[in-house]
């Protein structure tokens, strides 16, 4: 398919969206809104994964895509860890 023009995706989408989702997810997670936080972080992660996977075929900044992916992944880990550990702490308190 040589010669086919690549679709151009701005960094704002490949990096900005996952980053924004990551920040929002962390904030929601800290506010104990676990479900929307996880959904947001997962959405950001999905964008990051798609951007990384499609990077060869699409015209986008690879560094921006990687940054977005790492941010979204970190947010996911944080939100899930925070929720799970909070619940574990709660259970520990119950036993106490």
């Amino acid at each position, binding site marked *: 398919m040589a010669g086919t023009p690549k679709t151009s995706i701005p960094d704002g989408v490949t990096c900005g969206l996952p980053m924004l989702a990551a920040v929002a997810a962390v904030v929601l997670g800290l506010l104990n809104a676990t479900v929307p936080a996880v959904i947001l972080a997962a959405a950001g992660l999905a964008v990051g994964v798609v951007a990384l996977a499609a990077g060869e075929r699409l015209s986008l900044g690879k560094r921006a895509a990687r940054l977005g992916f*790492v941010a979204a992944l*970190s947010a996911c*880990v944080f939100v899930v860890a*925070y929720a799970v*550990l909070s619940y574990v702490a709660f*259970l520990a*308190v119950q*036993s106490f």
Partner: protein
Amino acid sequence: MGRKKMRNVTFGSIWCSVIAFVLALLLVLNNTAMSFATIISTALNQPMSMIVDIEGGEQGDSEYFESAYTLEELGGETARVSEEIEAEGMVLLKNEDGCLPLGPDQRLSLFSESTVDMLYSGTGSGQVSTADVPTLRQAFESVGYAVNDTLWSFYEENHGQYMRERMSWNPFDNAQGVYRVNECPAREYTDAVRASFADYGDAAVFVFARSGGEQNDLNLTSDESGGSFLSLTDDEAGVLQMLQDDPAFDKIIVLVNTGNMPELGWLEDYSKIQACLWIGYVGQGGLNAMAKAFTGEVNPSGKLPDTIAYHPDAAPAALNTDDNTYTNTAEIEARYGAFSVPSAYHYQNKYVAYQEGIYIGYRYYETRYEDRVLGQGNAGGYDYAATVQFPFGYGLSYTRFAYSGFRAEREDGAYTVTVTVTNTGDVAGKEVVQVYAQKPYTDYDRRYGIEKASVELVGFEKTALLEPGGSETVTVTVGEERFKSYDANNAKTFIIDEGVYYLTVGTDAHRAVNNILAAKGKTAADGMTGEGDPALTAEFRLDFDAETYAVSDATGYAITNQFDFADLRHYWEDVVYLSRSDWEGTFPTHLQLTAPPQLIDDLDTEATYLRENPGDEAPVMGRNTGIQLITLRGAEFEDSQWETFLDQMTAQEMFELVQLGGWRTMETPSVGNPGATDQDGPQGISASIGGIAESEGIRCMAYPSTIVLAAAFNKDLARRMGVMIGEEALYADVSGWYAPAINMHRNAFAGRNFEYYSEDPLLSGVLAAQQVLGAQSKGMYCYIKHFALNDQETNRHSYSSFANEQSIRELYLAPFEMAVEEGGARAVMSSYQRIGAYWAGACAPLLTTVLRDEWGFSGTVVTDSANIGYANMHILSGIGAGNDMWLNTNADNYVVKDLTARPTLLNALRRASHRILFNVVNSSAMNGVSQTAEVVPVTPMWMTWLYIADAVVVLACAAGGALVIVRTVRNKKEDN
């Protein structure tokens, strides 16, 4: 070939994920630690405030309560009291042919797996430290006995396989698990073990132990016995049969190591069982006292605080205990949601029906017996001898006592009972003089549904140690108020019935009934189990009186019905309570109740929330009047200075005082409130959820369980134990004691019977009052608990108790009333469950009308443990009803927003703060706070370390993040 370099994205993903996890962990740890800062500080003995004397006053001026002992002396004295409680509380149930005492220099074989795992306390908040307790073997060896080492080692070695399974105190197991004995079967005893018996055959000592504790009642059924958890299991029976068949032994002595009264009919099944000693849960000193009873150095003088029935599961109260769910639970759950963890034990669909009315324990067994003898009340084929093995108040001695010179005289509204007790045996001993009354059961009672027991304990005294031939004239004063009855259906207050009243002394409740029956002209020929002694009875005739006891003696407040809403008939008109007018026709069944629509509505927790009254104005807050708390020490509760003082407190300060009362009372530095530490439990403050009371080098004493103290029937001993608790508390910096626990032994299977005294309200109330007097004399305040009608553990967090007003007042509130009015208790712990449809902590008739208006209580009411955000225990639910403090350590629980916009709530918080601080200022918590002192907040050391750890972790994470960036940039440059 070099290792393949990790891609930047992979490296960054791994590291950033790790950093994210660590940060999440750090946040959770910090959140949890800060939410529980007060309890962590209490547990670590690192206060969040300190007392600073601003004018250099001497600390010695401010020691308001001082110990009478050095620390070393105190250790010796508490050990003596612990041992003395057991010495006077253990009950000799059987002693054929003078089997006990064995005398010196015996060689014993100790049987059952429990010998190496004796029970020193129950489980839960009432458990005690066992760090310093002797083993059974050590106790016997301390009196010079030899113990079969082969057998002991056998039990120790197989203990992992056959050890007792206790109910865990895990809230997620709520009443779902089982207690198991798991005794080592006879077939496991090797030839070598059996061969060892002959050399240690002076006696076989068999330990029958049953655990019990908080959160879970004992099982009414057991796959190990075919009976209940309180029955002998098949494996235990196998061991006893092995001993019966083994010629190495000619006597078996049974030790009953239980906090509940078990089934002991099997004592009659083995001819070699010659002696049986109930020892309860023994604490630290108990086994030593028990061993001394074997040698004869101690002569048992305990009396049963509960009846021992052959089949306690057939008692009328036992038929309506355990787990009961409304038949239309789906309808209730559709309205309120299903119970689930962690929605915090908010049951709306559980209940307990006190259908037996006043007939618990001996009030049932002895009353039906009398009616059977008198041929009245449709007593049916009731066979007392086949029903009751050991009556209430029963207990043998190594000596004998004779009673003479009985007199009962009436003067100024009180009755003086006098009797001379003579030791007619060969060894010294103590005797308990038990005074019982019989109130007439009249046509008026039958018409208005008032019930009367055939006998009620109305007084008791314990003699001094009487040498052989020695005697003591004992006087017991019985106030006429002991003859009153609650008439809930006509007079709606306490009355004195018209008719003949009897007073008698008896060595147990059954002897007392027999004495009265003898006075009525009855003999064994009429169906009595034995002859009574009419010379030990007196008769009085009283007229009907519905006025004298219709007002509170303490406050003058008019006494009338308060608990109609808790009566079964409030929701189910056709339910009948047990009545002696028709035993057969009214005997309880296992009530299967359907919740009517009104009850479903009433179960709505939020319906009891405090509503803002539009006319209310907020109290003055945050005004600096310059009054420190210490200046109010000794001031009356009503002193006007309190109002000026309270004007200083902010809304948040008042709220925190109410909200965060878990194992401590919060400090309020701005007004000089140093806070206070509160500790469990009834057997002593040696171990507690709020931390182990071990400061200043003291390890507090583990006393025998409360039921053993009750069996001692010794007021002086109860007071001395209270004093010792108070003494220990002075060294351990503890001011509040979550005890005594005064719920009733409504049935034999309640998990916390070991913490409670008895099936009898007078015995419970008298001893609790003495313990309170003792502890409070040393600056403690006692949270008498669990107020009220929390007489079982199953579903305890919010089942509904339904009972009639007569039984509530005469049985379940009476001991609390005595602890308040006679003991001066300054604090109360409300209970978890509901009274009728309403949480006890939100029950204004209980916490305000009865407790404060009728009894004159001006102290603090704290909730039961509220660390989980229980939906039905919200501050808005209880604060208006008279509950002052939440036994909660989590600042995130029970939060109320917009405090300053809630004037009605603010006024309630102010009232609660007044009560809480009135308690604190008159307690040992003020030790060290002089008139010139200030309380200043400090950061406890653990918090400082936490902050340092936070900084280290955050810096490490930042370094990790920097590493990722540096690596990415460097790789990029290399790639270019």
